[in-house]
């Protein structure tokens, strides 16, 4: 599993942001909250019915609409190694 988007991530899973598939406006908004390539984020939850996704970035939590979350590409961290 190399690249997945935010909506596919499992709750509790960590990952590194690789790519933001969006226009400049969206990238700017995400960047302001520190969601940009190279940053590690943790997924907290998804809401039912394609609702917003909650992620932890740094020490804050952010809610991201489903459509936007779809376009944030993440490389999941290898959990199995860290036993």
């Amino acid at each position, binding site marked *: 599993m190399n690249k997945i988007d935010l909506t596919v991530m499992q709750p509790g899973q960590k990952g590194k942001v690789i790519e933001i598939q969006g226009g400049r406006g969206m990238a700017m908004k995400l960047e302001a909250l520190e969601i940009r390539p190279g940053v590690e984020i943790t997924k907290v939850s998804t*809401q039912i019915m394609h609702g917003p996704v909650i992620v932890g970035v740094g020490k804050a939590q952010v809610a991201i609409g489903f459509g936007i979350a779809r376009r944030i590409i993440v490389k999941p961290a290898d959990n199995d190694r860290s036993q």
Partner: protein
Amino acid sequence: MGNPNVGKSVVFSRLTGVGVISSNYPGTTVEFVSGSMKVGDQKVDVVDVPGTYSLEPTNPAEKVALELLNDAVGDKGVVVVNVLDATNLERNLNLTLQLLKKDILLIVVLNLWDETKHTGITINIGKLEAILGIPVVPTVAVTGERIKELIGRLNEAKKSIYEYEDAEKWHEVGKIIEQVQTVRHRHHTFWEMLGDLTIKPVTGIMIALVILAATFYVIRLIGEGLINILLDPLFNNLYLPFIARIVSLIPVPFIRALLLGTTPNVLESFGLLTTALYIPLVVVLPYLFGFYLVLSFLEDWGYLPRLAVLLDSIFHRLGLHGYSAIPIILGLGCKVPAMLATRILETRREKVIAVALIMMSAPCMPQTAMIVSLVMPHGAGYVALIFGILIVIAALTGFFLNKLLRGETPELFVEIPPYRIPRLSILFRKVWLRLSTFFIEAIPLIILGVFFIGILEQLKVINALSVILGAPLEYILGLPPQTALVMISGFLRKDVSIALLAPYNLGPEQLVIACIFLVLYLPCCATFFTMARELGWRDALRILLILLGSGFLVGGILNLIFKII
């Protein structure tokens, strides 16, 4: 100036003593607020700027912030106070670095300083000052800690000579963080895990329902308690006899009738000194107080953004943002602040839909109380029926407006602040502010309305009007034509219009129709004027017509259904 949610408004109110509503969800300050303070013996103006994450604006609030900043550039008499969240240094420094490049006098405030200890963060202030080249003051704005120090050091603000490349901004931030901050690793605490439950979908919704139920219960408790134990006896036993005696000294019967009203029952008399004061003070105030108390608690605690997230997907079906949950919830207390709260919505389309829903979906708190007390004797089923119908109407309205109005709804994108224990002094201050705003704005209108109706009644015009309006009421809604008077006065005193139905002894089905009609057909005048101010007269009038039409439509349909059953 600073990121949303860092406590700017609290710092502001500490500096100026001016009351500001600071709420725990971003987007609350969309205009700027200003006040003044004393530095030494100089009077200085202070401006609270909307929160912004960077100087490249992505929404209206941030644009306002940028404009305010640009006004200050180059002006040696202006100091920019950059308020940061000390627990989120990395992200907050983004704005700081951008500010450093501007030709302004800058001073940095590290607010939420107490929370750094709780989260295991240590920041070397001296080093940060040395690197940035400007003074840095840690504060805890909610307690006022070190605010004095901030005031004392305001004149140290200076223009920084810190240099960096724009493209390397994040590297710079990273470098600074490395030199200045250490974080001790912390395990997820129990409370944090509990907090996560409130936002996970299944548990979140269950918790939300519990909280909502508790909310209604508490508000009812406070409201009824205040009315029955304190205010009603006070008004009826002390105040009324007192002014009755004073007014009886006035020789002109016309004026006496105007002031005291036509009947001893304070809810029917339309007297300026009786009804016009009884309604806001005894009927509305207790519930509003309870409502604002609970709401402010939920705000300060940090629950509302999480609620917005939980409701977001449902709201999107109606063309709204999860954010609109907040104005709609406010609308359950009083529509006027709900109207004002629609400012936090980004697009006009959302605003219109939200306003329509606020007006159609739920009655304001005083109305709700009235409906319950009037209809409950006929059985709880009828009460549930009324509210159930209103919810369905709201959903349908939202759904259709969504289809009819062109445009898209922006996606939710919001920071979720950590849960914080609300501080009582700040809580009460907020409640006080909200209540006084309501009274200053609403009471004059209520008095005006009562005055107007009182005169009309004295001139016997009312009877004529009732006859004209009675016809549609009777034929479409199946209500006795005399209730036309209640419907007219409903515009001015919507909150109590429902209680005015009492003397007519309506059957339960008629009551259901009447209540729903009264909730839908018109906004109270205070709300209408606020709506006109927010949306403009044309849209406000359009919404008015939609409301009136739907009132008759729904009432008419119900009338038919009941006749058939």
